[in-house]
């Protein structure tokens, strides 16, 4: 029998890894990827709870999160492409001006 | 004549992909038609006389030697300069004797000028086209090799030496007067100047026939 807390621990661990990546990576694309990692951990959390609560709410939420994650990726990467066009760089320390 | 640039399709053609279906129908029909290819090493194409292939020196049946008289016409006409002849002159008779006759087949561009200008029909480009090899050496034909090429060619095709005909030995359609004596050999009537073909009533007939009718 797999306990719910196991899932929650895995999820927490993955989330922290994502946070670490988001805080430390130089490349904006990799930061976005870290956010995906965090979203995944949240998804796992929700799906597990939903399973153990015998209710579909959590899984429906996961479904929506996946949809919104797609939107987020599209927008985020669009911004990265625009940034790259203007600055010729995707590195956080190179992008210091607040211009479009 | 201005060509049409009208490619508008009718609605039905546009929707039901009629032109694509027509194409598909054509390829499907061709699937069941006879193929036109020749399975080369098993089957071979029949060559027409005068195909410009491997070089050979014609062996004179009487002397069993090459007919060459070392007039140097072939070597001086050769655009690729792949023929080299050395000869010596007999002091008394002023006759020339061929010392060596060499053809570098790798340089040759197979234009057939040499056989056309040869006044005694000594050199010929035979209808043999399969003589590839791994090294360069076998393509350096000397006199012996050239005579051997001739023998091999005759043997391969079961030809009799004096029956061999090649339109470059006696160019088709040239009047007899324009030919040097050595080239005045017997040819089918169609090849002679008098026997020229023309087109009449849906088939090719010789000019003589056309005139007599």
């Amino acid at each position, binding site marked *: 029998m797999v306990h719910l807390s196991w899932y929650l621990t895995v999820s927490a661990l993955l989330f922290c890894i994502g946070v670490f990546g988001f805080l430390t990576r130089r490349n904006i694309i990799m930061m976005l990827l870290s956010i995906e990692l965090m979203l995944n951990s949240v998804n796992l959390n929700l799906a597990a709870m939903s399973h153990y609560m015998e209710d579909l709410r959590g899984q429906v939420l996961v479904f929506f999160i996946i949809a919104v994650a797609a939107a987020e990726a599209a927008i985020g990467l669009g911004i990265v492409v625009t940034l790259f066009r203007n600055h010729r760089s995707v590195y956080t320390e190179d992008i210091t001006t607040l211009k479009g | 004549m201005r060509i049409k640039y009208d490619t508008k399709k009718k609605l039905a053609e546009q929707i039901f992909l009629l032109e694509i279906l027509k194409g598909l129908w054509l390829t499907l029909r061709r699937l069941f038609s006879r193929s036109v290819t020749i399975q080369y090493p098993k089957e071979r194409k029949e060559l027409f006389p*005068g195909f410009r292939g491997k070089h050979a020196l014609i062996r004179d049946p009487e002397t069993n030697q090459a007919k060459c008289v070392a007039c140097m016409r072939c070597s001086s006409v050769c655009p690729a300069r792949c023929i080299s002849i050395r000869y010596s002159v007999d002091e008394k008779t002023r006759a020339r004797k061929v010392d060596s006759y060499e053809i570098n087949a790798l340089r040759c561009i197979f234009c057939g000028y040499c056989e056309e200008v040869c006044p005694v029909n000594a050199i010929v480009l035979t209808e043999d086209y399969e003589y590839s090899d791994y090294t360069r050496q076998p393509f350096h034909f000397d006199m012996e090799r050239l005579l051997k090429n001739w023998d091999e060619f005759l043997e391969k095709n079961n030809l009799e030496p004096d029956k061999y005909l090649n339109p470059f030995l006696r160019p088709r359609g040239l*009047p007899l007067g324009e030919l040097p004596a050595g080239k005045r050999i017997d040819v089918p009537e169609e090849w002679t100047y008098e026997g020229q073909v023309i087109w009449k009533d849906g088939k090719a007939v010789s000019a003589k026939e056309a005139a007599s009718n």
Partner: protein
Amino acid sequence: MLENKAQLRLVKGDEATHEPYTIAMGPQHPATHGVLKLDLELDGETVLECKPTVGFLHRGVEKLAENLSYAQTLPLTDRLDYIASMANNVAYSIAVEKLLDIEVPLRAKYIRTMVMEMARLTGHLLWLATHALDIGAMTVFLYCFREREILLDMFEEICGARLTTSYTCIGGVRQDVTGHFLESLYDFTEDFPSKIKEYETLIDKNRIWLKRTQDVGIVSAEDAVSLGLTGPTLRGSGVDYDVRKHMPYDAYPYVKFEVPIGSKGDVYDRYRCRMEEMHQSNSIIRQCIEALPTGPIRAADAPDLVMPYGIQKKVAADATFSSGIIKLVKDSERYIEGDVYVAAEVPKGELGFYFVSDGKGVPYRMHIRSPSYIHIGALSFLCKGQMVADVIAIIGSVDVVLGECDR
């Protein structure tokens, strides 16, 4: 380990500027029809700049010709446009005949016209085959080769070679045609229009083909003339210029044919022009067969093949072997100083020979105006702003042969 991008720039020593994506198309590329190299600068798939590089097949024919007699240069012309070498032979011969003022007998003229149109068919068939293959219709390729083989067989019958024909000689042709040749050629012309229909079934109205060819590589009439385009490539733009009509040679004044002209100047127009030309060639061949007169096939004053390099110099004293040399020495007055430019309409366009003679048996200077050379020069104009796939279609539509381009 470098800490940031600024350091990297220091190491590399250049500003990170926006470089276009460059692609070297060729010299080994399946769609460049030989050893053409195109340096494409791309933005996505759009071509910003197309720089053709040629010369990989340069053999120095012009320099060679300065050291070979007129007759000896003729086989070299086979190697120019090697897919329609008959046409080059004829073009070269008429140029030399103009220079030496030799009148070709009528029968030879008809035969030459016939083989020239056959060469046009072989050239156009190979063009259609490769053009269609480049655009992806691979079956047309083999259907075209099926017919081309028949034509090559006929070449083999009359001159003993399929590709490097060297069929003409100065003042006529080297061999007369045979009855079998005429009959098989006639059968071919009967059959050929239906074969053209077959190709057209596969591509002519096909929506993919139309999308790939229409409005691609447009060149206006003025630009086409200015670029020096000739042949079907020029006529696709709507300019009525055909050497066969403008400066008739051989038997072209005696046969009836029309010159197809396009309107828009895109790939599709050029394609249609060539397809129509095939019909016209077919009809010319037929007229030539039917009107073939009797008579000599070489001019009586045609020089012997063994043309001396210097007229004054007597070749190998034994002139008795040949009637030709005597004739030549007699006619040495026709080798005079002067220059001529003579062009002929080969499948690719206007193939011109410019001769400068200094009165010897070899040309002092021969310049070949090869259509492919000019057409490749026009590629950078045609390809600008098109997509990568269009570059292929455009190369196919201007129909270049690198042997002719590089000479």
